[in-house]
């Protein structure tokens, strides 16, 4: 790709080439993005910006590049979801309860990125403790989607929970961003902001140092503007980590090198249960178009069944809150984080600190989680949900005996208006209907921009793969990307200069 005059138009791959060829310095690249961030404060994509740190890292990157010692992501400016603990940099999980928390440690995934030479621009906004599908539950206010309905000025949500990361990448404030995905929190915001979002297999990336939401579902992944960039970022993020017992000791392939191998002979499964009631026709049309793209590139399309799909969302909204209710017990105002003042008894300290520190949605999920684990309800809810989870995983195992990957829509709808779904949690939860199954089964899934809605808003398709087969997921995602030739872009309306 020709060198653009605006470095924020680069992909990670472009920037890497331009830096190696010394067509641009890491400092220039960082400055361009820091400038874009300054001009985009109205999007509220960042909770904390770290320009000084970015520039000093960029300087070091320039020294390394000059010395010929560039690492795979040398000088690449990234945005980091504010759920990753970053040493010496405020980490909030978008919650008041961690409003002023400065970790003394660095999460494994971000450390891996810094070890590969990447540069942090700042910490991105998210739904509080990653609980939400619209980035409206953040203590630091909602993130605004860079996209607008054609011809209108209404603010739309960027999806969630990685809404700040999605908006930052879609608005060209960063070349890429980290996200975390518990029920769709990478793929859903990626889909509604027109970018690529990859949730790796559970265990591929270490969870150490990531503020936990639901431990058995949480997984970090890249959010980028191209599939190739996702491949590059994932390789740097993934690792076996002895500090995370659930991370897996498997080699991390060079995903980038196999992206162009094509999908001739690949068996792509179409799960009939994903054709849900009341799904907008444009989603269905997009899905059909995706099928056509893959078939025309030589893939074989097979119909498969995932019979327990309809139980996935209810099971998810039992398992995830159950784990969350326990994971969030540590925020008690005793050792760190928000502590209510003027309380003189222990129970009062817990109640007031937590009531003041957690927002509505977090409190709701803690209560649901506490309820489903309670004596007398455990078997009916938690245990049953775990059984459903086993059945869902088995559905996938059986489907993958007939195919290599699955193709589904990423979301049931395009971006919606701020505030339009906050009154009804269940309608909000339905946003995850196509994504939660993947988390429950621990599989890799990618959302790739594939078209626009009638309103001119981006829509994504999802590729689901076998466990630890991110290679095929990325290769198929790349095939979609090539065929879709998604060129639409938001209208940079937020720029203040």
């Amino acid at each position, binding site marked *: 790709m020709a060198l653009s005059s605006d470095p924020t138009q680069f992909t990670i791959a472009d920037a890497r080439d331009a830096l190696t060829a010394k067509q641009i310095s890491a400092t220039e690249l960082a400055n361009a993005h820091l400038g874009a961030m300054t001009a985009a404060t109205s999007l509220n994509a960042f909770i904390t910006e770290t320009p000084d740190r970015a520039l000093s890292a960029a300087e070091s990157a320039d020294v390394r590049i000059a010395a010929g010692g560039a690492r795979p992501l040398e000088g690449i400016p990234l945005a980091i979801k504010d759920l990753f603990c970053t040493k010496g940099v405020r980490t909030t999980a978008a919650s008041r309860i961690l409003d002023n928390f400065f970790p003394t440690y660095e999460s494994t995934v971000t450390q891996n990125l810094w070890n590969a030479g990447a540069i942090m621009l700042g910490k991105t906004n998210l739904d509080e403790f990653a609980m939400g599908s619209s980035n409206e539950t953040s203590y630091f206010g909602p993130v605004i989607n860079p996209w607008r309905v054609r011809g209108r000025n209404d603010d739309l949500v960027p999806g969630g929970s990685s809404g700040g990361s999605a908006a930052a990448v879609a608005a060209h404030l960063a070349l890429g961003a980290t996200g975390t995905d518990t029920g769709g929190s990478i793929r859903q915001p990626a889909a509604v902001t027109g970018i690529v979002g990859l949730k790796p297999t559970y265990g591929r990336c270490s969870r150490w140092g990531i503020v936990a939401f639901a431990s058995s579902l949480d997984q970090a992944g890249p959010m980028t503007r191209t599939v190739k960039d996702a491949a590059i970022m994932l390789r740097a993020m993934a690792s076996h980590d002895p500090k995370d017992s659930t991370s897996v000791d498997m080699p991390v392939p060079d995903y980038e090198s196999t992206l162009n191998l094509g999908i001739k002979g690949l068996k792509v499964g179409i799960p009939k249960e994903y054709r849900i009631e009341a799904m907008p026709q444009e989603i269905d049309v997009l899905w059909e178009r995706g099928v056509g793209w893959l078939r025309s590139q030589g893939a074989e399309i097979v119909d498969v069944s995932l019979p327990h799909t309809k139980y996935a969302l209810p099971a998810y909204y039992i398992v995830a809150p159950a784990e969350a209710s326990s994971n969030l017990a540590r925020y008690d105002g005793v050792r760190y984080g928000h502590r209510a003042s003027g309380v003189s008894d222990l129970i009062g300290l817990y109640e007031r600190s937590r009531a003041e520190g957690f927002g509505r949605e977090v409190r709701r999920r803690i209560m649901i989680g506490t309820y489903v*684990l*309670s004596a007398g309800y455990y078997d009916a809810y938690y245990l049953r949900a775990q059984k459903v989870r086993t059945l869902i995983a088995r559905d996938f195992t059986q489907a993958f005996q007939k195919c290599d990957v699955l193709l589904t829509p990423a979301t049931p709808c395009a971006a919606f208006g701020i505030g339009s779904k906050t009154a009804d949690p269940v309608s909000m939860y339905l946003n995850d209907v196509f994504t939660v199954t993947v988390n429950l089964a621990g599989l890799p899934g990618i959302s790739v921009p594939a078209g626009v809605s009638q309103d001119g808003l981006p829509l994504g398709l999802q590729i689901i793969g076998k466990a630890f087969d991110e290679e095929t997921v990325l290769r198929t995602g790349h095939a979609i990307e090539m065929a879709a030739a998604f060129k639409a872009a938001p209208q940079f309306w937020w720029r203040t200069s």
Partner: protein
Amino acid sequence: MSEGANLSKAQASKLIDGATGKWEVVIGMEVHAQVASKAKLFSGASTEFGAEPNSQVSLVDAAMPGMLPVINRFCVEQAVRTGLGLKAKINLHSVFDRKNYFYPDLPAGYQISQYKQPVVGEGEILVDMPGGETVKVGIERLHLEQDAGKSLHDQHPDYTYIDLNRAGVALMEIVSRPDLRSSDEAAAYLRKLRAIVRYLGTCDGNMEEGSMRADVNVSVRRPGQPLGTRCEIKNVNSMRFVQQAVDCEARRQIDIIESGGTIKQETRLFDSRIGETRSMRSKEEAHDYRYFPDPDLLPLTFDQSWVDALARDLPELPDEKKARFIKAGLSVYDASVLVADKEATEYFEAMIGAGAEPKAAANWLNNEYFGRLNKAGIPISAGPISPEAAAAIVQMVTSKVISSRGAKDLADIVWSEGGDPRTIVESRGLKQVSDESAIDAAVAAIIAANPEKCEEVKAKPKAAAWFVGQVMKATGGKANPQTVNAILRRRLGLPEEG
């Protein structure tokens, strides 16, 4: 079916008298034994006792955001070894669960424990009672769990301080069946359990430092009747307190029932200062711990071959040692007393190794050395007489080089001054005198000096002991007492003993 009708004598002797008849006390124990590990169960932090508050706390122990537990393999190994020592079933697949409750010394808001699938299943312990009875106590399970930190309420008038040094330390919770029937049995069970873990080296058994703590479940019933409602007495931290707590709790329950009341299931605390238990929380106030499998940890799984290898490397345990000692000539009682104490056993075996005859060595320990140590209040490991010196003393008695009286004097010298007993015997002239002519001369002299005593003895032969004492005194304790006795009887014309 009533089993009360035909209680054995031993069972009947344990019953407690109430105002309206006899009662049987039923006891089960949950013992928390700290794993003898330098590092905590899920973090690398140190477990050393008595360190500065909060100096041994990792990010995991303090439950910082995003921190994850990683199982300490060594601790698992010790739990399995303990299970093998309890002749228990080792579960090749077990699961860690979260036990959720809020307390400031529990940083994560949950304790990682094992609930439905513990690492060790059913086993048993044989408990020897002084009367010769052996009580078989069933072990229900052993599981691994984290200890909590400590709340310090006495540091400030308005604030409670928290010390997290202990938070995350590995504990083995060993749960018995309700097979104990007296406070003596409860204490003996705990003593035996402590001996087993100390032999294995899996727990140091130090109750003063809290390395072993017992929750004691107590109920009472009429002999042969179904189990009564139990109360759990929490955190009893010495053998003596276990005994006291059981006794006063059983008495409390009997008094309530006999005066027409019923026992409420509850958790109680034992106050050792006033010798009473008092209510801590009732069943209604009990926490709902919301146990569920910890998603941060994989299930614990191991191969039978790994367990077999641990079993092969297990040291000799008290029961096997006891059998071996009995075979070597010790009485059942002496052998039981010895093996109950790991250090005493090691001392005993070192004496045998140095050439002492087993029975004589055991007698010397039981009749001589343990008394001295108790009186001085020092443990055997810090005692001033080495097992080699003790063996020399015992050997000299056996070979009649010194008298038993001389052995006492010799032990006094070695105790206070040290030195080689054989050299001391030579240099201080402690050798037993068996030379009849020397003893005869001494006897003659005493008789000559005490004519009135002679008459007394002739009338009352039992008074001869006075003369033996005088002769021993005159010979500085060196005379062989049997020789003295024989000569004395001959000279006074008394009949031979026998």
